[in-house]
């Protein structure tokens, strides 16, 4: 092979690569977003149970794709750390009905914050995954390829929201998928369906007429931990800044 043929061979590679990488460019896609109204959440835990039933997540409530955090903040100005009390949904039935939580909330401003994978546009878990098991779909959902995942748990360390965990039976990590099999059939995610007060709303923000577009337009929305620069897809209405952890 002389030099000319060698260069021709190299030149042949370039269009092939460009073709493979550019085949998905130029299409318009949906942009899925979940809007959570913190004022409406009553901490009943229906979403947690529904998610576990729908997605075969073990009924151990420490390992949840979505969970609820209850905050009890001392009215007036909280001045110590103990003035802000936080409780994570940890029992199976009637999560906040034990006496200690009722005592805690007495005389305090109480609110419940449902949390789940934020499906960040700049996701730390996707960035750190050494085997490219985590990826963005065309509509912005962050998915986890469980066949490629080696269970190294880098993503668990990287996620600022604590939204990922190791599945005890599959031995790989597991996280919320926005119920990808449901939303692609036009159904709501299981947690949105099970929410009795309508605190969670799911939809496509690229669609002007959708419920989430209206909510995002009419309300001031906030995201969790904006200083991480992750640009989450879970937006909160009425989020209190004591939700810092």
């Amino acid at each position, binding site marked *: 092979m002389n030099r000319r043929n060698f260069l021709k061979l190299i030149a042949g590679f370039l269009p092939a690569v460009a073709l*493979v990488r550019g085949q998905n460019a130029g299409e318009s896609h949906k942009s899925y977003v979940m809007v959570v109204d913190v004022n409406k959440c009553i901490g009943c835990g229906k979403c947690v149970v*529904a998610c576990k039933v729908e997605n075969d997540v073990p009924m151990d409530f420490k390992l949840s794709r979505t969970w609820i955090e209850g905050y009890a903040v001392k009215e007036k100005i909280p001045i110590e750390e103990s003035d802000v009390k936080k409780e994570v949904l940890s029992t199976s039935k009637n999560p906040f009905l034990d006496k200690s939580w009722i005592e805690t909330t007495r005389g305090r401003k109480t609110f419940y914050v449902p949390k789940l994978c934020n499906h960040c546009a700049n996701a730390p878990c996707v960035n750190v995954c050494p085997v490219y098991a985590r990826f963005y779909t065309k509509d912005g959902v962050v998915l986890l*390829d469980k066949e490629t995942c080696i269970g190294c748990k880098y993503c668990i360390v990287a996620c600022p929201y604590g939204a990922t965990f190791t599945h005890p039976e599959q031995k790989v990590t597991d996280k919320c998928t926005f119920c990808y*099999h449901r939303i692609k*059939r036009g159904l709501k995610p299981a947690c949105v369906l099970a929410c009795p007060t309508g605190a969670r709303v799911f939809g496509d923000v690229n669609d002007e007429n959708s419920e989430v577009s209206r909510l995002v337009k009419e309300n001031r929305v906030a995201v969790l931990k904006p200083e991480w620069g992750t640009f989450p897809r879970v937006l909160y209405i009425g989020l209190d800044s004591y939700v810092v952890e």
Partner: protein
Amino acid sequence: MRRRTLILGLGFAVLVYLILFFYVFGLSPMVTGSSQAKWVEMELSLEPKFSDTEICKECHYQLYIGMKNHSKVSCEACHGSGVEHTIKRTSDTIVKDRTRDFCLNCHLDVGGRDAVKTVNETHHPGIYCVVCHDPHK
């Protein structure tokens, strides 16, 4: 002779480098997403376990139109996943919890529940709520 060996060796090294470069940054199945596309198909093949109120309505229309207070609550919020029930249509495939604790899961007077009507334990303690209050009315 020596010069020729050097050129061949260098050319071979460059070739290996370029092949690796294009594989890692352009053509490997992980980067092109062929393994990921396979996984997306797997995700899409999962069957939903929660149905929809629209489907419940087809059989339980009288309950559906008589609903006032819980009209915005999805059936499956209280009755659990319903796809099995839509196929078998027996009463043991759906959750019917009449206990007081089940109602108080949402309606107990805990702080932060401004969105729903709440009661505390002094309101007829020990009696099932459904004796007086019909949840479907």
